[in-house]
């Protein structure tokens, strides 16, 4: 008999049904609601409490403050999407905004196998879009795809995420219900809440252990 048959067989053999629980009541989660202003404040507070940075930027011109931030840090290469609206806006206005003073724009345009060492050691920062934010936990929602692959938000030392203020939900449950995640999940979905960190050495926090050491969230308003 195969392992599968044997395990399922043993489970199916149970004499009486497992005592079911009381009907789960999710209101303890759903009643935690905040107004739009509170959501933004809470989101910011949460992200900052875990060493992330939030920058509020105007929707029409978010490139100027971004470029200022990058140039001040002397970032020399930035990885950005090509298809997504944030990538297109960024690429269209890049020369004007940077005055050709860098950083150099790169694209994730080959399979990882073709440029692993480069991605791992030559890219300083990567910018991605997000599907929304979560106020309660200070989380960003990402569904990586061909234009914005999984490793963009993980391998470069700095991750910059673009978030629209009107897409900040109170909590994850509300977000996954409204965006109807149950209808179909992508191969990879992520909640990102701050830069990579560890407390494995004597409970002392250290950032950037495997992923980015810095997370900048551009909140477009």
């Amino acid at each position, binding site marked *: 008999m*195969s392992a599968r048959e044997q395990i399922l067989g043993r489970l199916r053999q149970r004499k009486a049904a497992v005592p079911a629980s009381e009907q789960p009541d999710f209101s303890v989660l759903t009643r935690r609601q905040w107004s739009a202003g509170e959501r933004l404040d809470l989101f910011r507070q949460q992200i900052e409490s875990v060493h992330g940075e939030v920058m509020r930027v105007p929707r029409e011109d978010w490139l100027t403050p971004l470029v200022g931030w990058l140039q001040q840090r002397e970032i020399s290469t930035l990885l950005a999407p090509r298809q997504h609206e944030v990538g297109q806006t960024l690429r269209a206005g890049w020369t004007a905004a940077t005055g050709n003073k860098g950083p150099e724009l790169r694209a994730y345009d080959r399979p990882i196998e073709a440029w692993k060492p480069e991605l791992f050691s030559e890219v300083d920062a990567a910018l991605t879009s997000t599907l929304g934010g979560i106020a309660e936990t200070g989380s960003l929602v990402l569904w990586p795809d061909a234009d914005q692959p999984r490793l963009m938000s993980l391998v470069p030392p700095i991750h910059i995420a673009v978030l629209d203020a009107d897409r900040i939900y109170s909590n994850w449950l509300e977000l996954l219900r409204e965006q109807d995640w149950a209808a179909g999940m992508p191969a990879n979905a992520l909640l990102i809440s701050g830069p990579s960190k560890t407390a494995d050495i004597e409970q002392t926090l250290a950032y950037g*252990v495997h992923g980015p050491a810095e997370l900048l969230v551009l909140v477009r308003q």
Partner: protein
Amino acid sequence: MTAEPTFHTRARASLADPQIRANFRNAMDGLMGKRTAAFEGWELEELRTLGAAVRQRALSQLPDLLEQLEANCERNGIRVHWARDGEEACKVITELCQQHQARHVIKGKSMVSEEMELNHHLAGAGIEALESDLGEYIVQLAEETPSHIIMPAIHKNTGEISDLMHAKTGTEPRRDVPYLTSAARQQLRTKFMQADVGISGVNFAVAATGTLCLVENEGNGRLTTTVPPVHIAVTGIEKVVGGLEDVAPLLALLTRSATGQHITTYFNMISGPRPEGHLDGPREVHLVLVDNGRSEIWQDDELLETLRCIRCGACMNHCPVYTRVGGHAYGTTYPGPIGKILMPHLQGLAQTQDLPSASSLCGACGEVCPVKIPIPQLLVRLRREAVDGDKLNPSVVRGHGVKRRRLEALVWRLWAWGHARPALYRFGLALAQRLRFLQPRRLGAWTRHRTAPVLASDSLHARMARRDGGSS
């Protein structure tokens, strides 16, 4: 031949080690405080009730959910494998590695893989398995086992880790946490790039969507499940839940209970390998569902509650025994309260007979458990099983009755017999009261730090009768 160290000998050794005591005391005090702070403003009791209900509901539908999980994973392109025990799971994984001519495996944190000693098996097949979670990496360098399920290297302080990394990897001997962390990052980055296979655990497996959820802070879990061409996820069969919504309360409870975080840095949901046209992610994803005793636990209504566990570690952080003796004293994969109620099933009571009694039954574990597992009650149940102490409900746990002693059983039988006969009971009582000066002053370990209880000259019954008589 020297005798296997027991819980008692190991506990005595840890108690005598001031370094271990200090390391655990500091860490656990910190974790308890952070947990309390993280639940501020929450209706914690309601949330725990929801967490327990969601887990219990999933367990009540276990076989159906497993089949649904399998079907949906396969539909998403995740290959599903089943394993009756750790041995079989190791075999499945080793074979998968061999099919891909894998020499180097990188691992994310997985307690199930510890439970089945996967690294050891892989090494036997000539495959190097490297732990990438910083705590696990340190423990592996030290050739030890984790002493906490969330914080594997909590038994070591910065100085010890600095010395260890200096000796094993050539880092500078600096007691500087950011330096040590970035040194480990450098060492592991190359390993991630070289790895042929990534192996991870699973925190929640969602049946309705065929999704594997991983909770982590470091990003090593994401690297493990994204960079190598093959990802193998391994999990116990009890980790399945119905839908994504069920994950919401469990995630809210897990990270706050474990480390007092509102959420971890990464919550990684994997529902398939790299899709056509995508540029990264593994080409193959496998899920190994391990039983290893779980379907046995599941047969008993009371013991089954053990399987609600979401491995947050709060029970050990709050356990007065764990805090003092540390994780290694237990000598088991899962230490602390959860270990005491789980390990007897995985290894049999014969091997784990000291565990259910290594508790004062203070109840702290049951009070903090986010899914309301009645741990103290289960400890009492296992103590009873160890002596076959319940005639009406025959014992079921493997190795039950291992602690049953003929003399002890006889004493209790006599006791019961005497108490069922009023005349005899009164006679015995009177006799004992007369002869109470003969009572021993020393009662083994009990009286080493306490005075022996002395029988009263009068019974409570007699006193109450006198009082009632006087007041009427």
